């Protein structure tokens, strides 16, 4: 209990700091801390799968996305004056929420209604019908497969939206993007002017320490992603987490070398295709069960003994492919990499 309390206090403090910081670059870094703390809380509260996802998404991908957007806009927030009307709205909302939640069952109460509606069925069914140890995976891919298909479609739609806004169709807009000339790094006036470096701008790929260590790390990250993908039946893991970790490995590669280096092994066009392939694999599994004469996404059609296993495997693979491709494509979009910028090495 005390650990939860301590972490919650920390979460509140970080949220306050993020809200008050005028330097958006620093605030973006603190969102990383915020998400790490939340993930810690999820672990303490027994939600290991959620923590897994939050860890992979929050500290890595979200930070990269914010930094990419900051590179194309500006990092300084204008001084924000105090406003009482929003505060009034917030206080009223808070009062309503406190009043409303005071009727809720206490934290951790095993008698709470939420634990007695569908949950016992899921817990029993995961063992007896689906034969999957991780109940979260069983519910995600089998019992509530429709929901997850919807979520994957939402991710797909968001990727299409970002591609339309920042991709080829954005046309000349890219040329007017700022290049972060107003970097406010907080280094008080010293040797370096804003946007100018003291030493010659050595590229990160020219630093042996970074180059070698990252080359060493990346195969393990990708392998680990595949392990997470395959391990989802037995422990925390699955398509969402694996996709994000795989993408994080590629993004790390792109951060040390260039986005172009990633684009040579994983071209934007391939990423775009794979997003669709992932969603189609998920939907296709459902269609396959229909064609076999069953209901949509009823994996028992693949065989009573291990049909659920095959179905979950296919569906999770689709999720993994779609999520990984989406994250990599988002990274391309936010590092201003356009498909025609990809050049072959001489």
């Amino acid at each position, binding site marked *: 209990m005390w650990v939860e309390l301590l972490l919650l206090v920390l979460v509140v403090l970080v949220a306050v700091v993020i809200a008050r910081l005028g330097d958006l670059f620093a605030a973006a870094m603190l969102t990383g801390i915020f998400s*790490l703390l939340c993930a810690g809380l999820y672990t303490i509260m027994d939600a290991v799968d959620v923590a897994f996802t939050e860890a992979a998404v929050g500290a890595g991908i979200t930070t*990269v996305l914010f930094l990419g957007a900051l590179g194309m806009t500006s990092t300084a927030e204008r001084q924000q004056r105090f406003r009482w009307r929003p505060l009034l709205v917030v206080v009223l909302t808070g009062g309503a929420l406190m009043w409303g939640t005071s009727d809720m069952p206490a934290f951790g109460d095993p008698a709470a209604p939420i634990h007695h509606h569908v949950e016992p069925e899921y817990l029993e069914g995961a063992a007896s019908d689906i034969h999957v140890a991780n109940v979260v995976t069983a519910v995600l891919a089998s019992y509530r497969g429709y929901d997850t298909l919807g979520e994957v479609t939402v991710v797909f739609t968001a990727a299409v939206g970002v591609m339309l806004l920042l991709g080829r169709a954005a046309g000349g807009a890219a040329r007017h993007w700022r290049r972060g000339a107003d970097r406010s790094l907080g280094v008080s006036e010293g040797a370096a002017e804003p946007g100018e470096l003291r030493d010659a701008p050595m590229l990160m790929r020219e630093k042996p320490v970074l180059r070698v260590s990252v080359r060493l790390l990346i195969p393990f990250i990708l392998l680990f992603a595949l392990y997470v993908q395959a391990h989802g039946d037995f422990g925390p893991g699955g398509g969402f987490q694996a996709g994000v970790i795989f993408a994080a490995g590629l993004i790390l590669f792109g951060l040390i070398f260039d986005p172009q280096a990633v684009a040579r092994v994983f071209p934007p066009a391939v990423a775009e295709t794979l997003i669709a392939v992932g969603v189609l694999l998920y939907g296709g599994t459902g269609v396959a069960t229909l064609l076999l004469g069953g209901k949509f996404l009823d994996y028992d059609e693949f065989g009573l003994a291990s049909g659920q296993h095959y179905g979950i495997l296919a569906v999770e693979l689709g999720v993994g492919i779609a999520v990984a491709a989406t994250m990599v494509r988002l990274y391309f979009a936010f590092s201003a990499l356009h498909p*025609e910028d990809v050049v072959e090495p001489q």
Partner: protein
Amino acid sequence: MFLMALLAIGASMLLLLTRAALGPTVFDRLVAVNNFGTNTVLLIAVSGFYTGRPDWLDLALVYTLVNFTGTIAVCRWSRFGHLSFARPAGTAGGAAQDGRR
């Protein structure tokens, strides 16, 4: 004992958070943030043992990797001011502004 370790790690998180909030330079914040990540890894590892099911160490592994990625991203950003690709030394700048195309 595990609880004590958890609380100690939590206390160090509080100290690091103070540094991250105070700054003054972005790099001071980044040291704190990076170290915060290490502390979170330890927190997750210990909490697995604390709750009696230490099989979630995959999580700690992910944290290590992701924290590293985040730090590198911020370093690169502070170098170039964007995440786009960089030109070799002498022609510093990104893809976006020089109207190539």
